[in-house]
């Protein structure tokens, strides 16, 4: 049993501590740094009495620790302010846009993981040959690509010059009306499957292709590199060599012995790259007009919608900490050598 109860308890405690820290930092950003925090809350077109009301609401005339208390209380009550752009409570906006981002990032991650491990293994077994060099160079380029640039390039090529793939939105609005598609969970793949609405499913998938390709590049590059270097090291191990001499088929050897050594570190590195992917989603969703959290925060940034910017960022940071916790637990579960 590699995962002990104390380890879990410790990690969850740490998660709470970190979430608390995230809130403190965001409190500093919203209430301490700006000269007049109430202006961030009400927007540029607010009248004097609105600003005065906001001052009262935010308790800005009280000492800083009282302000912090009210800030945390508001946060846990779900009172994250009202977005200036959508005129809706920020927390509501975030919850409605979360499924879109999850659909995109999870798909990108699964694809990056599968393709990355396969390419990495291919490179490792043909170590030093041309194919290994090609894959290595590919992985370096792919991990260095500016996500926003790749998104624009793909969009230009595949939906403007050669309009094969739609360049934006989650689903064609006219198709939704025609087929009577109703979002239930807001995970459109799931929703269209439940309603057996295949035209919508096809359209949703088609519109996911470009954003997913853009988004998966960084984790893909990382996975290839990680798999390749771990597999090369593992192929050098004496027991693997022995098996080779003994005449075990290569495919079986790869699957039974090498892959096991590779998976744990690859998952750990994928967890790390989740952070980059979620910030990538910010830009990718903005470019492909894909209404998830990234799009929400991105639009908020472009229109200086502070409640939405900070609410979105705090939310993403907490999700990120959760993902890291899950990844660490999976890592510990797969690799018994991990110590706590």
């Amino acid at each position, binding site marked *: 049993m590699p995962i002990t109860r104390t380890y879990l308890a410790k990690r969850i405690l740490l998660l709470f*501590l970190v979430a608390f820290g995230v809130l403190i930092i965001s409190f500093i950003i*919203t209430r301490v740094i700006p000269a007049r925090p109430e202006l961030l809350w009400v927007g540029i077109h607010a009248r004097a009495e609105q600003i005065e009301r906001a001052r009262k609401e935010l308790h800005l005339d009280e000492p800083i620790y009282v302000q912090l208390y009210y800030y945390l209380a508001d946060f846990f009550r779900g009172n994250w302010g009202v977005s200036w752009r959508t005129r809706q409570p920020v927390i509501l906006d975030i919850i409605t846009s979360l499924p879109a981002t999850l659909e995109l990032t999870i798909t990108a991650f699964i694809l990056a993981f599968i393709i990355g491990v396969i390419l990495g293994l291919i490179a490792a077994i043909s170590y030093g040959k041309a194919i290994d060099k090609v894959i290595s160079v590919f992985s370096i380029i792919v991990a260095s690509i500016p996500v926003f640039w790749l998104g624009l390039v793909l*969009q230009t090529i595949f939906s403007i010059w050669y309009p094969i793939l739609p360049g934006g939105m989650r689903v064609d609005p006219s198709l939704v009306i025609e087929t009577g598609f109703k979002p239930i969970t807001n995970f459109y793949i799931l929703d269209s499957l439940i309603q057996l609405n295949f035209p919508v499913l096809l359209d949703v998938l088609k519109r996911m292709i470009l954003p997913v390709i853009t988004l998966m590049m960084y984790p893909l590059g990382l996975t290839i590199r990680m798999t390749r270097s771990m597999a090369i090291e593992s192929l050098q191990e004496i027991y693997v060599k022995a098996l080779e001499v003994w005449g075990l088929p290569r495919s079986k050897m790869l699957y039974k012995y090498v892959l096991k050594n590779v998976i744990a570190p690859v998952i750990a590195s994928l967890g790390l790259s989740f952070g980059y992917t979620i910030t990538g989603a*910010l*830009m990718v969703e903005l*470019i492909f007009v894909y209404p998830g959290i990234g799009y929400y925060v991105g639009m908020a940034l472009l229109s200086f919608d502070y409640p939405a910017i900070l609410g979105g960022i705090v939310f993403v940071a907490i999700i990120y900490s959760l993902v890291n916790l899950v990844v660490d637990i999976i890592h510990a579960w797969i690799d018994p050598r991990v110590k706590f």
Partner: protein
Amino acid sequence: MGLFPCDFFKFLVKRPLYTTGFIIVVAFIILGCIAPYILTKPEDAWGVTYDLNKAFQPPSPEYPFGTDAYGRDMLNRVILGSRYSLIIAVCVVGLSLIIGVIVGLVAGYLAGIIGTVLMRLTDMFLAYPPLLLAVAFASVLGRGVLTAIIALAISWWPWYARLMYISVNSVKSALYVEAAKVIGLSKFTIMTKYILPNSLIPVVTQAMLDMGSAILEASALSFLGVGVPPPIPEWGRLISEGWVYVSKAYWITFFPGLVLLVTVVGFNLLGDAVKEYMNPRLRSIVAKR
């Protein structure tokens, strides 16, 4: 390590891919240093020009990278942009390095309550995904080169703090540190004279390799409209300016992005080279083949 540069060059020359990376990085640094002096159309580069007759010229011998919406030569703007990318990257990495090294050194050597508090503080900053904290700070601080640097450094230092902490921990039980304690040197002297110089190398190496990522993040910040303000031709800024016109003038976004990509690839290749050079295990595998 004594013959680092000489040995390292011998190591590089045998590997064409790494040599390419090295050349790209050197070229980028030189370009960043001399950019303002080699501009053929400085007024275009600095963004003073406003000539709609020359707007949206496709790439041609006269305008190799085309012109933007205001008729400015993109090549000149991209060249000047390298300077901003270089300055921002150096400042972000340098500033983060200073903060990170101090925090990591103090936390690692003093341990106890101070150490725990400092490292938990570091964890709190690390809880934010890489770019997001910078975005949050930049959105409140306002746009500008200096605010972009500060915002990025705030989100960047915890990585070095953690690395330094690990490095200090591996050094602090060494015999010479024990000896220094026994002869009664003060904690400050031990930290600065004995621990700091011996734990700095991994952190500084990592920092130098991070320049590529710093360039990338700075450009992402500008792309999102919270980094460098117009008319400064920072690469992310240029891509963001061309975004609106992408259907009719691809070159405004394409070339700055391509140059950005090549630069980052260069840094990453060089990073791999240094890692392979410093890791004897990896090198021995290579040598066996």
